[in-house]
């Protein structure tokens, strides 16, 4: 097994990238990786691949890695492999050299996690840090300790089809810059987040997307086959906001931590003040999480309750518009 520091993290891609950077000698935190890469986002989607609408809270999978590469000048070697066998051979080759490898996998096949927590999602990232007999040793930031996965299962997880298909994708950090311009990186990350939250001209993205979500949730009963189904989908709002690797409050706590760290690093009181507001905003998103869990369990899902939920979500849109507008102004002066 490669000497690799395993620890849990809030989110798989930012956690895996942070672990790779730390291993390569760059001392950086997960909030900083997340913030610099412009990770925070909102989008409400009705996709052809899904039977029910959903919402996303971060930018497109893969963008955290590419943004970090660009803004921190990190050298990352990436590989896509045509066949499952070639993908496993490429992985083994690097492991034999003592190099930990981040691989993209379908989350469903991470069998060390309980079955109820696993769903098909092709953009999960884990670090493979060794091999022990027929098993691979996995550093998964969603699992408290180093996990094991047999070769057959890992091969399947890396070669599934579907949205964001992994196609045997793997990467590892090959070099880090000793002197990184953190101020420019922080500024670029904040500007990107503010653009996507405030200025994307699509009704289902950004602040407009949050309002759109609030509007749409009141019509969810029409999409459900019965009360159990509606209860499940309403309670999934909690799962997406809190349990599917966000660090709590729909990534808002993680982003608040980034703003706080950035403010301290740059000696910028405005960023520190905005961090406090973002943390409070995360608390209000968590109140939405607790609300949907309760009404879902109690089957209190009539029009009055869903209207109340809509208002809570719209209030988040109102508050975040104000926060991101002032954050955008602050970023211009960095």
């Amino acid at each position, binding site marked *: 097994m490669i000497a690799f520091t395993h620890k849990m993290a809030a989110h798989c891609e930012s956690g895996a990238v942070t672990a790779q950077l730390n291993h390569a000698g760059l001392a950086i935190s997960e909030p900083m990786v997340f913030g610099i890469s412009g990770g925070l986002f909102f989008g409400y989607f009705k996709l052809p691949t899904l039977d029910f609408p959903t919402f996303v809270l971060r930018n497109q999978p893969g963008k955290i890695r590419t943004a970090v590469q660009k803004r921190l000048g990190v050298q990352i070697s990436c590989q896509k492999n045509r066949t499952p066998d070639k993908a496993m051979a490429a992985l083994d080759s690097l492991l034999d050299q003592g190099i930990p490898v981040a691989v993209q996998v379908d989350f469903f096949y991470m069998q060390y996690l309980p079955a109820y*927590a696993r*769903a*098909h999602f092709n953009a999960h990232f884990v670090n493979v840090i060794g091999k022990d007999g027929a098993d691979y040793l996995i550093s998964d930031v969603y699992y408290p300790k180093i996990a094991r996965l047999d070769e057959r299962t890992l091969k399947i997880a890396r070669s599934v089809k579907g949205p964001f298909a992994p196609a045997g994708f793997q990467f590892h950090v090959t070099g880090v810059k000793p002197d990184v311009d953190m101020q420019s990186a922080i500024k670029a990350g904040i500007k990107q987040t503010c653009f996507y939250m405030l200025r994307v001209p699509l009704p289902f993205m950004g602040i407009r997307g949050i309002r759109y979500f609030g509007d749409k949730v009141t019509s969810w009963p029409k999409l459900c086959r019965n009360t159990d189904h509606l209860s499940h989908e309403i309670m999934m709002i909690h799962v997406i906001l809190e*349990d599917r690797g966000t660090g709590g409050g729909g990534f808002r706590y993680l982003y608040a931590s980034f703003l706080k760290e950035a403010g301290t690093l740059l000696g910028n009181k405005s960023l520190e003040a905005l961090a406090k507001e973002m943390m409070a905003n995360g608390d209000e998103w968590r109140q939405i999480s607790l609300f949907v*869990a309760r009404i879902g*369990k109690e089957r209190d899902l009539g029009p009055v309750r869903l209207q109340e939920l809509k208002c809570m979500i719209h209030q988040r849109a109102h508050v975040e518009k104000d926060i991101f507008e002032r954050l955008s102004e602050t970023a211009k002066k960095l």
Partner: protein
Amino acid sequence: MKEEDSKVESSHQLILYIEKDDQTYGPVQTGSYMVKNYLDDFFAKKARLQTIRLEELKAGKISPLAYYKDLVEIGEGDLACRVGISRRKLRFQMTPKGFSRTSVALLERYATVFGIPVAQLFQVILCEEEGLAIHNEQTALPSVIISRISVRDRQASELRT
């Protein structure tokens, strides 16, 4: 969120970012609030859905593909994409008539998506008693598995075969 508000006792662990007592922000490992308080409700709903789908399966209204699709909670479009067929073909194969015309090779692809041995597409195993466990063992032939049914000793928490 303050650190003291984040503590949840649950076997399902995750990371939350919180405000610590010294007013810095940082990660804390804690349990999942949803799992601690609502996992029983999730399982109850799933069990009711499984009962409904099983009745439809027994009545010949749906095929095993429709049964497992809903249990695994995968969308129609996603499932079709993963096994490499059109949605129209998938919908046909989710009917008993369509299922009977599906090749073994394609059924193996479905089984991989559902995370079950392909044999389970032809057999639904229900545990009538609590404490029974089924362990499936792969063989050199990917489509053939060996299923072992065991009784868990509740007192000693040991597996007795």
